């Protein structure tokens, strides 16, 4: 049954969810959208981040967002090492596309099994004073457990946008997949540029993980549903456009939330592919593709 209140609440929840989806998708937008590296393992890094945050929260009562931010240097370094391995094993030999995909699937599998062994299949969650509270705007309730991830996700997106568009390394990251040779003629080393980009993309996983576990309880296999979402958002957003990624994430959040409210939550993930197929039929380069 349709009611305006229900609709407005679903819409608001969708927008909030969308801000969080942006945070999860940034890593794919950079690695897949800008570097042409289909990093299937990014969502499992997000899970890994979520579990590290869980550990800090349950052991020391640390604030989840703070924990997520504290772990970014670790993820940055892990990302740099992973790219180095990927480069040495595949990219340098020009064998990246299909075998690269298998490589990242392997990483996904290893990390997921590692999380299973360490934490089991039980759902884990974090606690913080503000998580159960809500902000009320008339008939619309904005729960903090969604509002904070949205604000954090949008902030992270804005930071990455500023970095990519305002700094020399940011512009080099945007150019590297278009013409790595030309980039050398500008005095930049394409390998280092890509490694930096991949490391930054991975660093976002730790913050996204904190947001994920703040929204709801997690279990290791959950990364799978985010693979579809994040790739859908990246393609829809125009492959590497950061602004496009945010808009696409918001659209997906709203579409999912409305579908879940009016047709049932089982439709959730199917919606992401539905939105993707529909949008690509209309505009193959994505909504904001250059």
């Amino acid at each position, binding site marked *: 049954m349709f009611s305006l209140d229900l609709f407005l609440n679903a819409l608001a929840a969708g927008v909030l969810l969308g801000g969080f989806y942006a945070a999860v998708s940034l890593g794919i937008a950079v690695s897949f959208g800008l570097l042409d590296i289909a990093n299937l393992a990014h969502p499992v890094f997000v899970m890994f981040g979520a579990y590290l945050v869980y550990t800090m929260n349950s052991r020391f009562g640390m604030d989840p967002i703070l924990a997520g931010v504290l772990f970014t240097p670790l993820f940055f370094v892990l990302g740099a090492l992973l790219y180095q391995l990927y480069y040495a094993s595949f990219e340098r030999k020009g064998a990246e596309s299909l075998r690269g995909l298998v490589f990242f699937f392997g990483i996904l599998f290893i990390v997921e099994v590692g999380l299973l062994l360490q934490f089991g299949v039980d759902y884990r969650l974090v606690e913080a004073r503000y998580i159960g509270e809500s902000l009320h705007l008339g008939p619309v309730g904005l729960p903090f457990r969604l509002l904070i991830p949205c604000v954090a996700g949008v902030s992270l997106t804005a930071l990455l946008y500023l970095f990519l568009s305002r700094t020399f390394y940011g512009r080099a990251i945007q*150019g590297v997949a278009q013409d790595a040779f030309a980039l050398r003629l500008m005095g930049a080393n394409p390998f280092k540029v890509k490694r930096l980009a991949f490391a930054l993309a991975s660093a976002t996983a730790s913050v996204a993980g904190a947001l994920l576990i703040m929204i709801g309880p997690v279990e290791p296999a959950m990364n799978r549903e985010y693979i579809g979402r994040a790739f859908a958002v990246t393609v829809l957003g125009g492959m590497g456009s950061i602004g496009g990624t945010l808009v696409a994430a918001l659209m997906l959040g709203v579409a999912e939330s409305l579908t879940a409210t009016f047709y049932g939550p089982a439709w959730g993930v199917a919606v992401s592919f539905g939105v993707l197929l529909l949008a690509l039929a209309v505009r193959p380069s994505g909504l904001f593709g250059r």
Partner: protein
Amino acid sequence: MASRLVIRDVDAGYGAVRVLHGVSLEVREGETVALLGTNGNGKSTLINCIMGIVRPDAGEITLERDGQRMELIGRAPEEIVHLGITLVPEGRRLFPKLTVEENLLLGAFRDGARRDIPRNLAFCFEAFPVLQSRRKQLAGNMSGGEQQMLAIGRALMAAPTILLVDEPSVGLAPVLVNRVIAKIKELKDRYRLTVLMAEQNFNQATKIADRGYIIVHGQIAFSGATAELREHELVKKYYLGV
């Protein structure tokens, strides 16, 4: 800062195919030197040897600056760029999905260039006003001539002391060739920029060159001042069709 580029007895090629045979060439401070030759004679190969893109099998390529000699062979292209040598490559090699302005700013990536961005950007816009009016346009959507201007502008953003240009006139209408050539001359006069320009278009190149080398089948067949080149037999035979 007096700098001079000296190439001595360079052999180079691709795999088993030798393209350059004992090439020697020199570009002195403030000079514009033309490297003239028809298709496939090895102009780009020589330019690519200087930039560290192709590695010579023998010979020396040195940059002399303030009494210091630096061997360039064995250095990566990005290191050579940091020494102040930049290239406008064959085929332009712009970043097609970045805007005109983003392409220009990427040109200033090297440390030595970042300070002078406002000055160099102003020069680019003054030299090629179309770059200013199309600042926000994607480079890939520019016309061929506009792209060539952007490629030159991007190389200038690196504030080079030595500019290498591989066939600036290719694919350009005669009026644009004139303009590009005139701007290169202006750069040389204003900033004492040292230029090595590979060209097939003899008449255009000799308009601004101080000296020229003619490369035939990977060997320097003749070198001399521009006036001498115009008189020379080979030139008449290969370029003027006399």
